[in-house]
């Protein structure tokens, strides 16, 4: 469905843009049909940047993103519009996505004007009603309301309904539940899982490992723009091989057991990117080789890759 091949994003920073910030470096993974892939990482790991590159909101510095055989970065005009018919994003904060002056259903009107100019009014209303029912909303209760009259969960579902109006095949879900309350959170998550069974592929960007485990088949662990570990969710969660993944797993607050005595190494101040492993300065098992060579992804077991030269030693 969607294939990322060695993509990188470099920002120019500093007063005159003299310095470079590698937000994403050489990330490759693919998302199959009807597959949910979680992209997990701390803040600043480049997970949202990848989502934005897929949605063509920012340019790609190097590498290619191929969607159904078409290179996404070459799309222009009508081609790009076709692309947006099948690929859409939903973002973290549902409250600031809406213009508070207009009614919330204006987002649907915009879709109609842009993508379905020739559709008749009754046909459109049927379509709208269907997509609202699909996301578990009652059209009578939520249409013709201002954003402040709807709850966060409702607004977030509105955005999902908007994406569903365009026959989407691929959804970038960027932290879509972190702003919601615990009681409504799980409903939106279940909704995503239902959509998957109807043939949608989802890139689920999150920092919450328990949510990722709940919903996804495959997971990609990012650290400072590099892939640390990638593979089937059960394998990563059951047998984390990269020291960073192990540290993340140990830090997840759980209801069934208390935190163990795993020391959390706090993030050091972002220094310049050296040639070695990006995790070296926080890694408890790093040795001299780690500072020298950037590790590449190696297959540890079937469908489980890890980027650590010392994973075998443990």
């Amino acid at each position, binding site marked *: 469905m969607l294939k990322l091949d060695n993509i990188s994003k470099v920002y120019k920073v500093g007063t005159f843009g003299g310095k470079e910030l590698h937000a994403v470096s050489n990330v490759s993974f693919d998302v199959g049909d009807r597959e949910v892939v979680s992209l997990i990482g701390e803040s600043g790991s480049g997970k949202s940047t990848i989502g934005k590159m897929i949605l063509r909101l920012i340019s790609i510095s190097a590498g290619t993103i191929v969607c159904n055989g078409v290179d996404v970065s070459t799309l222009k005009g009508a081609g790009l519009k076709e692309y947006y018919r099948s690929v859409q994003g939903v973002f973290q904060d549902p409250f600031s996505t809406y213009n508070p002056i207009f009614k919330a259903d204006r987002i649907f009107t915009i879709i109609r004007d842009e993508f379905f100019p020739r559709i008749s009014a009754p046909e459109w209303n049927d379509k709208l009603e269907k997509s609202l029912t699909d996301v578990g909303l009652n059209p009578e209760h939520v249409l013709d309301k201002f954003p402040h009259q709807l*709850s966060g*969960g409702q607004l977030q579902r509105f955005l999902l309904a908007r994406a569903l109006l365009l026959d989407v095949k691929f959804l970038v879900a960027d932290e879509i539940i972190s702003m919601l309350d*615990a009681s409504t*959170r799980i409903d939106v998550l279940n909704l995503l899982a239902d959509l998957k069974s109807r043939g949608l592929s989802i890139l689920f960007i999150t*920092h919450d490992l*328990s949510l990722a*485990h709940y919903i996804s088949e495959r997971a990609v662990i990012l650290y400072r723009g590099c892939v640390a570990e990638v593979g089937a969710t059960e394998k990563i969660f059951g047998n984390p091989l990269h020291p960073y993944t192990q540290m993340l797993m140990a830090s997840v607050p759980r209801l069934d057991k*208390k935190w163990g005595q795993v020391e959390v190494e706090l993030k050091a101040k972002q220094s310049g990117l050296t040639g070695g492993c990006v995790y070296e300065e926080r890694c408890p098992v790093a040795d001299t080789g780690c500072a020298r060579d950037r590790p590449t992804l190696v297959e540890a077991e079937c469908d489980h890759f890890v980027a650590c030269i010392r994973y075998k030693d443990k």
Partner: protein
Amino acid sequence: MSLQVKKLTVYYQTLRWVVRALEDATLTVADGEIMGLAGESGCGKSTLCNSLILLKPPMRLVRGSVTLDGEELPIGDMERMNEFRFKRISVIPQYAMNAMNPTRKIGKMTKELLESRKVDWKATLPELKRRLDLVKLSHDVLNMYPIELSGGMKQRMVMVLSTLTDPSLLIADEITSALDVSSQKAVAEMLVAFRSQGCCKSVIVITHDISILYQIANSIMIMYAGQLAEKASTEVIIHSPRHPYTKLLISSLPTVGVKYSERHLKGIPGSPPLLLNPPVGCRFRERCPVAFEKCIEEPPFVEIEKGHFVACWKEPAKNA
């Protein structure tokens, strides 16, 4: 008994409406206790804690009393509360990321802050440095501007600032919500370390993330729509909750190890009531799966076992 709150009721007064944000909150926090306060957004948990430290309009104190270490807190009186704020009762605010003055170096800001409270800066400096070590910040941060620190570092710096005067009660309002899992764990453990080292006597931790509370809190209080629903020790709340809302809330949390394909978790249907005109009786009635006729009356917050308080008609019937 470090903190005792009796029948605290706080409304938000606007020109036309009264929002009944907090009704008859009665609780005690013991010395050295870390109490977690959890609930959905808008359930009144921040109102409860703000009223303990800064009860300013549009908040209006309707009734209730607060006692800290046997001394009555004049929470309705902005001026007289100055004696207690920061020294006896302190807060790590929800906006800790933006709590520091961006135009001052952190050291200078701390100095001004202490001087405004008539605390000797020179005498406090060694203790300040010791606490910076405790939260693993280098002493250089005192010569830095807040913008040079990452979110987690700012959070830890504010934690040090808030506890400099060894308050009896520390209120931590959603301090871990904006952090990633690894810094979340570090900050939460530092909070426990602060309590153990006597930097503050008791702590109230507000959060909507119950799994964090399970890790650090001694007791947990669950609020719903401005009222207390249940309070008990952490183990009891997590493993044998009695209030239907607590049960639903805990069963809706996904934990590592649960997969959608194997087990469907369920949310709580419906949404919390508006507090402008709250329903009479139990406010959870409309979403409650076990509601019956008696729920039209307001359930009392009673102790059903030692240290286990529940506000539900289904529970106290046994020993009423």
